[in-house]
């Protein structure tokens, strides 16, 4: 069974733990560089990207995370997608540049604008939970758009990494997590 690390600095890492279990992986919480050693892949969860950035910085986790990503798959949801992006606006903030996308934070509005909707993923439909979601403004030439919502990319894959601007961990549908698990075996 594959071991999936879930970055547990802050955010909905507990919801991801359950989602990984449903998808047939073994979840472990990651709070230190050493915790990464046991992982075949890493999920950067939803939460507040500014809080996670702060902790990555003071705990010197940015470099170990980059090294991990150079070898193994990383999946970011919402705040996680913001951390993995090439560049971030509103406000501008640092990011890991693991996937060639530009994102704008809270682009669809505040909590009262959060919504649950269906998105088109190829021939399939997925239930997608958007909470103060970021918007993907640009996808680089190496990126593959796996799902869109009202024309905006909401699920993007590039090589071994992928991001969603919605929260698959907050639904009972395991397809997104399963796709990530499949990336670990290939």
């Amino acid at each position: 069974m594959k071991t999936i690390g879930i970055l547990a600095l802050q955010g909905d890492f507990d919801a991801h733990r359950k989602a990984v279990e449903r998808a047939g992986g073994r979840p472990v919480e990651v709070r230190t560089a050493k915790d990464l050693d046991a992982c075949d892949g890493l999920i950067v969860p939803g939460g507040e990207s500014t809080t996670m950035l702060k902790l990555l910085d003071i705990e010197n986790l940015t470099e170990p995370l980059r090294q991990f990503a150079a070898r193994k798959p990383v999946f970011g949801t919402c705040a996680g997608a913001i951390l993995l992006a090439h560049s971030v606006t509103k406000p501008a903030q640092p990011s890991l540049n693991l996937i060639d996308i530009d994102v704008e934070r809270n682009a669809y509005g505040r909590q009262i604008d959060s919504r649950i909707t269906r998105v088109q993923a190829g021939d399939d439909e997925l239930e997608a939970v958007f909470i103060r979601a970021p918007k993907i403004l640009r996808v680089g030439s190496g990126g593959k758009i796996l799902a869109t919502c009202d024309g905006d990319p909401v699920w993007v894959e590039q090589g071994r990494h992928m991001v969603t601007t919605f929260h698959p961990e907050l639904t009972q549908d395991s397809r997104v997590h399963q796709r990530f698990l499949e990336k670990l075996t290939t």
Partner: protein
Amino acid sequence: MYLSDDFRLKVGLAEMLKGGVIMDVTNVEQAKIAEKAGASAVMALERVPSDIRKEGGVSRMASIKIIRQIMDTVSIPVMAKARIGHFMEARILEALGVDYIDESEVLTPADEEHHIDKKTYKVPFVCGARNLGEALRRIAEGAAMIRTKGEAGSGNIVEAVRHIRTIVKEMKHLTILGKEELVHEAKNLGAPLELVEWVAANGKLPVPNFSAGGIATPADAALVMQLGAEAVFVGSGIFKSEDPDSRARAIVKAATYYNDPVKLLEASEELGEAMRGLDVSKLPESELLQTRGW
């Protein structure tokens, strides 16, 4: 109700706040300090609880102008407090577009029998509780997050510990009872049977369970997280201390590494004086904030 899209979205934002620190702020400058220190959200209010305690008078929803300035300045979620039962303060905050409303005992109650009917709002609510019955009544009314009440503005963790321990113990107790006993227990708790049965089956609340009221140090934050809280609210503890900026950063670190004594030691080092605390057992009943709410 608990599976409706509306309620899932409300609980969803609470999920995003787990493992974090929600900080009380009274102006834009404090909100900026909080965000920079790594707060996962800020709570806008007129005065921090220790000042409310000192100055007395009626404590209301914060100035709309200040809440709006804070919303325009920080990128993290902004919460604001409404008085218990003051469903029109809550409507105004909803119209303003705050991300969460705290129907809070820290403000002067507007209704001494009824809480807000929170299900009818698009904006999510958090409410305080001292025990399981109180928590489940608030959830039945539509709260999507529960926090311990503790004793706000006291700088004393003893009440928050009492409340989180009580809630956890009462939940554990339900898990060993039979169906017919749950009916009796629902009556004792003053909570709907449906929710009592849910807790009995799952051993936890159907919404995230945070802690508030008296957290003043990184160790305090780690203590309530060890006891079962999933995130913490810090009120007077930060901006009434000698060193708000470094204390805010230290408490953020403690909320993440609550299970790692070495990291907690690092977080606790080089901090100045914490806020001056109060011996809650010496406070007259009339000065307690936690007894507000029904």
